[in-house]
């Protein structure tokens, strides 16, 4: 098996594991939400990190988008 395939399987397995871990504890209640108030549980807590990532991937890959980087610059190199 090629090295890239091994890495691919590893990443997908870890992602699946994380998704399953999340779903396993799914039990919607409305009372206790302390973890949800942590910044890590917000989708907008990583502004600069996301912007740096978007700029790098916009310049090096072909499928960035949807994150408002349309005007992110030339990305020519």
């Amino acid at each position, binding site marked *: 098996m090629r090295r890239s395939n091994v890495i*691919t399987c590893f990443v997908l397995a870890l*992602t699946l594991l994380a998704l399953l871990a999340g779903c396993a504890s799914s039990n919607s209640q409305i009372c*206790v939400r302390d973890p949800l108030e942590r910044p890590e549980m917000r989708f907008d807590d990583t502004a600069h990190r996301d912007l740096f990532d978007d700029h790098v991937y916009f310049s090096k890959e072909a*499928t960035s988008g949807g994150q408002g980087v349309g005007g992110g610059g030339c990305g*020519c190199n």
Partner: protein
Amino acid sequence: MQLKKLRPIGEALTAVTAVLVGSSPAGGAGLNQSETSLLIYSESNRVRATEAMFSLEKRMQSGDLLGLRFTYDGLTGASPTGESPSKRAQTVTRPSGGSRTVVPAGEIPTDDGFADTRFALDASLSRTVSFGTDISGGIHLSREHDYKSVGLSGSITKGLDSTMTSLGISVSINRDAIKPIDGVPTEFASTTAEVEEDEYGRRITNGGRNKNVVDAAISLTRVLSPRVLARIGYSLDYAAGYLTDPYKVISVVQPADGEDPGEPVEALFEKRPDRRIGNAVSCEIRTYTLGLFTESEYRFFWDDWGVTSHTAYLAIKLDMHEIGAIRPHLRWYHQNRADFSRPFLLQGEPLPEYVSADSRLAKFDAITSGVSYMVPTSPQTKLSLTLEWYSQRGDRSPPEAFGPLLAFSLFPDLDAVMLRAGIIHDF
């Protein structure tokens, strides 16, 4: 089972809604925030870039949230031009300036004449118009030596009652103008073709070109449990205008029955379609279990250029309280090539309608691995450091390769190191 003391339902709903719409609960800590970050990006023997960013979020007396962001980045170095390697040293013309350089045998030609700086300014204003409903609008300006961009954006996020779900819709419109260093090249023209010069021997530039970009996204965020938050989304990207890269070319090589098979004879400027419609669907989940935060995301992209991609992202954050938090993360990316992506053209064959040898439109896999360390330096200030490695590996011998070209790597592998530092200050 009651885990902790219960809070009033209204307070709990306010917190949940704040999480979903991304605004701080009224009276919460950190009404204002500044963030300063620096990125150093370095490819081995190629591009080096430094990017600095400063942003400020200030809660106005009216309750509106004002956001300002300044960005600077500068880059230098070499970038693959799209040309094929040769079995002997070849003299190539830089697409970014017309000067000539000698490329050693077997190496993929690069244009080492890149040096650019970019300044960008973003401003936004967000307002809570009713309980659970936020709207925001923003402007974007950016300028670099050969590129300008002006944009407007708007979004609305609405909490859907007590269903613990929120809906987000955002739209951005950008008008970009590109004015290449040596003028807009004629598509399919040879890089060595005669060009008009003024009385001082300078190239007469062929003006500039524009493109319009519209991004629209819709997302649904839902609290699945007190420890699990999920978001699904769809985005549509529409671009029209000059989408060709003026600095990319494609080699014309001798055919298999030629005198010197596979040898480049000239390089032509590429040509891409003047419209592109891209779509993406994504699913993101954040969890908090046993003291560990996890972020996992999957995204699928497809467009009318024939490009598809899969992206998977996983991060785990371990909070060690006073001594900080550590966050290893991994991103995997796979991309299939565009319909008009080709490594080279054959001498004597008819020119296609569109063609590009840009490796970014080719088939490849990319892996980003890294680790972040975050530590509070005061009750209001948090420092973060991130080190990442990015590598791209493509098809070294694509299906079109033949004869002597099979001995070369036709994909310019990429390895980069990224170092990020940032400070967030609440006040």
